[in-house]
C-alpha cells in the first residue's frame, strides 16, 4: 500500500489503511513524544493521542506538506500539551519519585555506547529542543518543515538548533572521546 492511497482510504474510515499508517509511523511518533516527555507511559499516551487526533482530523491534511511533517506537528503538540499538564501537576503535588525530565547523572550515563551517549546528550536539552534536534537530524526536516511542525518562528528554530548542537557536541565529546566532536567544541 502506498502512503497517499492509505491516506485517502483512511479518510473514509478504512481500518486497514489506518492500521497501515499507524504501523508506518508509530516508532517515529513515539520517538518525538518520548524525547519531549522522557517518560514511557506519558509517551505512549501522547502517541495514542496523536493518532486519534490525526485520524479524526485527517480531512484537514490537504497535502501542502509531507504527511510526516503534518503528523509530527500533531505529535509535537500532543507531547507539549501533556508536558505542560504534567508540569502543572508537578507543581501542585509532592513528588515521590525523581522528576522524569531530569537529566541523568554522570554515573547513570557513564557508558560509551553511542546510543546511550545520544540519549544522554538529548537529555541535557530542554524537551522542546530535543524534539527540534530530532526533527532536524533524525527526520531530516528542513527549518521550514520544523517551523510547520512546531509553530516556532524560523529564527527561533535556528537559534535552538545552534545552541542545542553546541551543547550536544560538548556532551558527546565528553562521552565518546572522538576527534570528530572536538572539531566543533574547540
Amino acid at each position, binding site marked *: 500500500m502506498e502512503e497517499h492511497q492509505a491516506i485517502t482510504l483512511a479518510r473514509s474510515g478504512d481500518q486497514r489503511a489506518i492500521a497501515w499508517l499507524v504501523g508506518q509511523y508509530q516508532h517515529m511518533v513515539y520517538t518525538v513524544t518520548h524525547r519531549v516527555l522522557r517518560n514511557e507511559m506519558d509517551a*505512549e499516551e501522547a502517541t495514542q493521542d496523536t*493518532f486519534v487526533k490525526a485520524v479524526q482530523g485527517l480531512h484537514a491534511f490537504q497535502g501542502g506538506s509531507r504527511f510526516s511533517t503534518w503528523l509530527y506537528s500533531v505529535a509535537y503538540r500532543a507531547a507539549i500539551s501533556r508536558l505542560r499538564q504534567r508540569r502543572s501537576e508537578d507543581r501542585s503535588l509532592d513528588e515521590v519519585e525523581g522528576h522524569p525530565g531530569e537529566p541523568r547523572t554522570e554515573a547513570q550515563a557513564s557508558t560509551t555506547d553511542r546510543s546511550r551517549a545520544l540519549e544522554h546528550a538529548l537529555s541535557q536539552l530542554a524537551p522542546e529542543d530535543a524534539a527540534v*534536534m530530532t526533527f532536524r537530524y533524525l527526520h531530516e526536516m528542513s527549518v521550514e518543515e520544523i517551523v510547520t511542525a512546531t509553530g516556532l518562528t524560523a529564527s527561533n528554530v535556528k537559534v535552538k538548533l545552534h545552541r542545542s548542537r553546541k551543547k*550536544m557536541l560538548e556532551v558527546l565529546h565528553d562521552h565518546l572521546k572522538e576527534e570528530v566532536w572536538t572539531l566543533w567544541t574547540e
Partner: protein
Amino acid sequence: MNPAERALQELFQEVGPEQAPSHLQARILARLAGEAEVRTAPAPLLRRWQWTLFGLAILGSILVALVLPGEASSTGWMALFLDRLPDMSGISGTLRTTFIGGTLITGILYALDALLHHRMGPARV
C-alpha cells in the same frame, strides 16, 4: 555541513528512532475503534413511519378541529361523523390553537431529530 554536524546527523541516523512498545499499535487501534463507537450516532428515537403516523393523526385532528364550529354547514358523511363526536364547540378555539401549535412543535422536533442524526452520521474513523 561541517564534520561535527555531519557526525551528529550520522549518529542520529545510526541510532534511529526509538522502538515503541510492541503493544502500542494494538492499543492505538483499539482506542480508535473506541472513539468510533462513541462517535456513532444512536438511531432516532422514533422511526420515520412512526413520525408519519403521528403527523397524520395530528393533521386529522386539526381537520376535525377546523370543522367543529361549522356544525350547521356540515353535510353528508362529515355530518354523520361529527354527530358521533362529543360537542366541543365551547372549546374549539383552544383546541384549534393547541392542535396547530402541536403540529408545529412536532414538525420542529422532527426536523431537529433528523438534522442531528444527519450531522452526526455514522462514525467515519
